[in-house]
């Protein structure tokens, strides 16, 4: 079993075997991160471009670190210093960068399918670092990695994803990924933030956090965009906090050893209070660390062999 793809675009079309292979590969890179010298020569001579059309310091830093730990040359390109604002299309931009002889594009873009467009039109590897509300595969991979690390496996776990499911790429990628590895997934949000027919993806829908949390092993809180309250989706942020913020009391409904995850950055006091975010049941920092290892694995599998 290997990994023979040119691109990593989403979790929907990955097989269970491919996912496990990436996670296995990530384990050895995770070990590298514990060494005194956290660097391997795997991608020496390769150039990776981080092409970010949305502000995202965290994901970009995580990719950049992963690339540097693999000894790749790294170029960062974000909206503010791109010519996109002058009317150049995404494809023009990508082709221009390609002309400088690079090996991989890591793309973050607000439009679903943007990385798929590039993957189809250009010959180098494309990694989807988040395309609109569609997918964020490396986030799902690092979440899987973290869950396996703490729980020993994913099979049979009950996992609740709570928050703005409708606009969340993290939710979509995790719904696919967790179910492929045998977890039972629940989603919970006000009905206006649940996308239509989401149950066809295999999940159970809850409007009440109290019901959703019963007996779960993992609670994944999603970041809520404050703008949602001005578009008819929510009456107010205050009401959202009252109904959907994770509290100690609500947490007590989950299994006694239930753990809390969040893709970050956390709106403290909104999705969950600081006390829980920083508490011993929170995996938020583990997720950040594992993110680097998982991204190293993905870069290695796409670029390392040729």
């Amino acid at each position, binding site marked *: 079993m290997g990994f023979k793809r040119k691109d990593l675009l989403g979790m*929907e079309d990955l097989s269970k075997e491919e996912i496990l292979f990436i996670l296995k590969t990530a384990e050895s890179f995770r070990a590298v991160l514990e060494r005194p010298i956290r660097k391997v020569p795997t991608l020496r001579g390769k150039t990776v471009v981080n092409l970010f059309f949305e502000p995202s310091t965290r994901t970009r830093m995580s990719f950049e670190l992963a690339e540097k730990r693999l000894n790749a040359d790294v170029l960062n390109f974000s909206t503010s210093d791109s010519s996109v604002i002058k009317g150049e*299309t*995404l*494809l023009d931009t990508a082709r221009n960068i390609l002309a400088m002889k690079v090996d991989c594009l890591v793309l973050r*873009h*607000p*439009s*679903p*399918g*943007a990385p*798929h*467009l590039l993957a189809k*039109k250009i010959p180098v590897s494309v990694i989807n670092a988040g*395309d*609109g*509300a*569609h*997918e964020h595969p490396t986030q799902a991979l690092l979440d899987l990695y973290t869950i396996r690390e703490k729980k020993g496996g994913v099979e049979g776990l009950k996992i609740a994803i709570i928050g703005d499911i409708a*606009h969340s*790429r993290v939710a*979509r990628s995790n719904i696919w990924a967790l179910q492929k590895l045998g977890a039972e997934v629940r989603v919970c949000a006000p009905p206006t933030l649940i*996308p*239509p*027919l*989401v149950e*066809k*993806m295999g999940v159970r829908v809850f409007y009440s956090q109290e019901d959703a949390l019963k007996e779960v092993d993992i609670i994944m809180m999603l970041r809520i965009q404050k703008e949602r309250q001005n578009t008819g989706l929510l009456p107010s942020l205050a009401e959202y906090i009252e109904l959907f913020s994770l509290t100690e009391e609500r947490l007590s409904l989950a299994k006694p050893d239930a753990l809390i995850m969040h893709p970050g950055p956390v709106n403290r006091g909104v999705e969950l209070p600081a006390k829980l975010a920083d508490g011993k049941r929170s995996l938020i920092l583990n997720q950040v660390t594992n993110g680097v290892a998982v991204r190293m694995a993905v870069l290695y599998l796409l670029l390392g062999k040729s």
Partner: protein
Amino acid sequence: MSLLIKKGRLIDPATNYDAVVDILVDGEMIKKIAPKINRSGHELIDAANKVVVPGLIDMHTHLRQPGREDEETIQSGTRAAAKGGFTTICCMPNTDPPIDDPSLVEFIYREAERRGSVEVLPIATISKDRAGKDLSPMGRLKKAGVVAFSDDGDWVADSHLMRRALEYVKMLNLPLISHCEDRGLSQDGVMNEGYTSTILGLQGMPKEAEEVALFRDLALCKMTESPLHLAHLSTAESVELIRKAKVSGVRVTTEVTPHHFTLTDREVKSFDTNTKVNPPLRGSEDLEALKEGLKDATIDVIATDHAPHLVEEKEKEYNAAPFGIVGLETALGLVIKELVQTGALTLMEAIAKLTINPARILRINRGLVKEGAKANLTIFDLEKKWLVTEEEFFSKSKNSPFLGWELPGKVEWTIVGGKVVYQDD
């Protein structure tokens, strides 16, 4: 000059005629239709084993002139029409500037006369500047020669204005064409709202955006008893609403596009922006309902909604690409493949929806083959397969989801006013 079309299978839905005959065209007119006409002295078209039908009529074409001549012009659009077997096309007024003034109508007629391959009949806006506020000068526009009024691209959201427009056109005896879409519901949607939009994370346009608008339009049509035509139906519930309205005697007519009875929103999974159309591609249950609506005459017309866009505009991420696809050159092939060959419609029924039905709605003396009528004729090979390619398109734009498809129904000759305007080589 006289032209003899020999041994073609003439299908004329206006008279329910289906037989092999000879047709003699003299000058602009059809002079004689008979089982056998002596060939001497005439230019000859051997139509043996071919189908001869009244020249096809497209009552929903975007020609982009004036304003976007880089996408399409009257010249290129009418060449595409001729290649697709259309002899008469109606151009929608959402140009830049919009067709809301007699001078622009005259411009289109002049340009079509000079450079056009087929007949172009302009549709003017319902509202001034297509702004949805005040009525366009409908009486003067009729004098200039428009055949209908439409703010296509937008619904006339102001119910009072729509009511007055419907009342006003009674005097003119011309139809209004409505693009049913409640923007409050469709918002910034880019595809059908449903399971596919959910997994793709693309914003959906619910079917109800069409149905809510359509329901109001039906109510106003009933109230005013004015001729109303509803463009590009896309949902099963729309078909059902129309069916009921027609039974109760409402004077409404409707159309569907070939892409809506051929493709579903599953196609959007490719993120191919040539699947981005408005109204969006819907579900398979809608597609089946549209076919049933065609069969039981709830849907009167097949129209292309030919909407040219440059490759550069379409080669974008899904959210950024414009809506619309070209349709003139693939319509007949899709009708035959998806409706006739599947048994959804007889060839006679299908051709009616491309000829006499739009002619009646537009109150134009077209869409039939008889002695003394204008010689607008389309001759095609029912069986002959052809490959849809960018290179073969006459349209300036190549934005089609059917590139690479093999379609039946190759158009062999298109004749407008006795003149061959397209001939397959």
